[in-house]
């Protein structure tokens, strides 16, 4: 029997009785922090991964994504840059991975990494869309250029007939019944720099001509036809999405070219859908399948996590992306999350796909349209 020992007034034991509960709280808290990725303990080292990103920075700058990656031992240090600048960046090789938004930049990056480590991952996709406000979408509908896609009394998604939309470009919004004397044109980021701006050029080019151009001369000629539609907006802005969603969004742009995920993420953050802001989907789409191109084993690891990690993939859906499997198949999570939030299914993938011209021709067209370089 060891009973007496319990009765003894032992100062060490008294200290422990006082100390144990707070200690337990400390330890429990630390464990929680370590597991959720708020801090890294001495037990695991954190690898800092340097990346260069275009619009997809919104994924890696998300607090929850940061925590999930931290819990896996990675801290991603983001340098934001437009896709085209990314592909031409002189210090490309100093990054662990890059994540341009579109195919031209993807090809350019791979060409520059010829013979070196360059592993592509395609974890998700998101289409380029034209975001606008209800009254502008309705004005376009009355003018015959847009058709509501969902059956709601206040639809969020419209199909946009680009031929008819481009035909309106010499009219003012006031001609369509709104109090705004500006020309009816879309505003986009600089096509010289950003993929979404370049994509708009691609949309217009496809609307003007059914077959993709086959030569530099054809690319230049088509570029000159597209140019007035892009030039009317004057100086192009940067990424349009953050400003579009503030209360003075109309004063930034009434039609802003952006990615669907930026809009969906905004809607999913809200308790009730914002029915004032809507999307126009060009009837002929080409989808942006951003590629994470890894240059190092650390980059490969992030790519694999993006493809496999259930938490990261769930978060990607919450941030508005359509996740893709290893063989490019879409999964059902996107539709489920959208529906749960009371949003209709966007018309992605239902319309015809437009082939973009070969990178070389497309780049020349962009140079003509945007007076690049």
């Amino acid at each position, binding site marked *: 029997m060891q009973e007496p020992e319990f009765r003894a007034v032992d100062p060490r034991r008294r200290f422990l009785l006082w100390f144990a509960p707070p200690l337990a709280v400390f*330890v429990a808290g630390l464990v929680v922090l370590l597991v959720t990725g708020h801090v890294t303990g*001495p037990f695991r080292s954190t690898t800092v991964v340097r990346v260069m990103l275009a619009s997809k920075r919104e994924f890696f700058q998300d607090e929850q994504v940061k925590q999930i990656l931290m819990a896996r031992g990675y801290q991603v240090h983001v340098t934001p840059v437009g896709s085209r600048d990314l592909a031409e960046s002189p210090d490309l090789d100093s990054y662990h991975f890059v994540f341009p938004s579109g195919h031209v930049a993807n090809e350019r990056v791979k060409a520059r990494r010829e013979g070196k480590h360059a592993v592509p991952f395609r974890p998700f996709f998101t289409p380029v869309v034209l975001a606008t406000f209800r009254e502008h979408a309705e004005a376009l509908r009355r003018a015959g250029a847009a058709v509501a896609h969902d059956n709601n009394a206040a639809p969020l998604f419209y199909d946009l007939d680009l031929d008819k939309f481009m035909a309106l470009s010499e009219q003012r919004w006031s001609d369509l019944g709104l109090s705004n004397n*500006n020309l009816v044109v879309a505003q986009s980021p600089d096509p010289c720099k950003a993929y979404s701006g370049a994509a708009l050029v691609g949309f217009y080019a496809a609307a003007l001509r059914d077959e993709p151009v086959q030569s530099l001369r054809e690319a230049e000629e088509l570029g000159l036809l597209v140019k007035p539609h892009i*030039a*009317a907006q004057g100086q192009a802005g940067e990424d349009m999405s953050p*400003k579009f969603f503030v209360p003075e969004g109309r*004063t930034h742009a009434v039609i802003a070219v952006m990615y669907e995920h930026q809009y969906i993420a905004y809607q999913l953050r809200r308790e009730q859908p914002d029915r004032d802001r809507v999307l126009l989907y060009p009837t002929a789409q080409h989808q942006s399948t951003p590629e994470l191109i890894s240059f190092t084993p650390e980059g490969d690891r992030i790519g694999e996590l993006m493809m496999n990690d259930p938490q990261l993939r769930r978060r990607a859906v919450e941030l508005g992306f359509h996740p893709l499997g290893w063989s490019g198949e879409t999964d059902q999570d996107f539709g489920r999350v959208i529906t749960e939030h009371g949003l209709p299914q966007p018309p992605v993938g239902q319309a015809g796909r437009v082939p973009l011209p070969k990178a070389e021709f497309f780049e020349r067209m962009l140079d003509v349209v945007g007076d690049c370089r």
Partner: protein
Amino acid sequence: MRVVAAVLLLVLTACTSSSPPPVRLRVLASPELVDLAPVLAELRRATGVELAVEHRGTVEASRSLAGFDLAWLSSNRFLRLRGAEPALSASIMTSPVVLGVRPGRRAVLGERPTWADVADRAAVGEFRYGMADPRVSGGGMAALIGVATAAAGTGAALRPEDVSCDRLQGFLAGRAFDVPDPVAELVRRSSDDTVDGVVAHESELLALNASGRLPEPLELVYPRDGIVLSDYPLMLVDPARRTAYDRVVDWLRSPPAQRMIAERTWRRPVDPAAPRDRRLTADIGTALYFPDRQEVLDRLLVFHDRAGEGRQVVFVLDYSTSMRGERITALREAFASLTGFDRFYVGETVTIVRFAGTVLEERSVTVRGRADLDALLAVVASDDLRDNTAIWGALDHALRLARGETAVVLMTDGENNAGPSVDEFLRVGRGEVPVYPIRFGEADRAELDRVAQASGGRLVDAGTTSLPQAVREIRGCR
């Protein structure tokens, strides 16, 4: 056990005491950002980053960011025009460029004026305002672009060929002062009732109203079109300061900082979720498409610098009998319809020379207000038509009246049949005064064109374009 506890405590302190070392960054900022002092003090407490700020007007600052770690200007658009925009740039807050108007003078501008309406009132001396120098300040430049875009009326971004000086002259004629800090100047002149308002950022005007420094708060007028919204991007100039820059941007975009910016500086937060005062929810109207060429801004400044008193326009009008009927009516209508800022503007001297076989009447007015314009219309209304047409004699007379920067507009429908011939007229050196003949009826196209070309002016054919349109074109200056 105690050892374990001590180790754990050490680990925990190691985790929590990782606050970054203090950093000092040199920042070039727009002058109106002096009001950020309390926000920057809080930034320093929260992040350890001290911003040592030097203030310089946005347009001036955009010429060179050399020597600074960061730049925080009302806009990066001026840098982008020069191809000098730093790669990293994050918008922190916004504020539109608007008009602050004394309540007693508010009615002059009408219900929801456009920039064109403002220029119109300014041109006839009914609205006098202060603004910042557009060669230095983003706010001043924004106002010029707004007026010029509204005047061009293309619904698209301004091109160099859209910038016409008279339209700007009309607006600038109403400028009472042109100083680096127009809001402070307005306060200094609060008892001077010849100043009706000021062009400035919404934030500066709301702060002024809240400060009680004016006997009566200003009314804010948001021009219906052509709004320029400053978005205050914080830009990384020296890439080596990236880590500290990221800390500053993260903090400034955090909800508490966004709230503080809205509450203390009256700027609109960029975080859609940030709460805002009722006054920061006013609808701010349609933006203008911002020009994409530096040349446009340069041209605006050329015309801006030319503004001022001493300009003169001489109209030489044919009152020969062949003008009777439709033609003289068209001429009068053209004058009457010179509305808005295509009209004459305050400070300008307008001379009308009526002629037939000789000079019939000459009247000069230096425009101070509407009454002067009515006097001019009375001259044009004359029914005193006479025989013969001495075009070159009348033009010679007009050119002798020219003082300083002058343009001459000649309207005629007939052939010269009195006084000197065109050859005799051209034999004499005529200096720098451009002549803009407006031809209608049987006037000799070749002769008029010769004189226009020789003087540096241009022939306008009233047959191919409407007369008011022709006059407006000419008023577009050279």
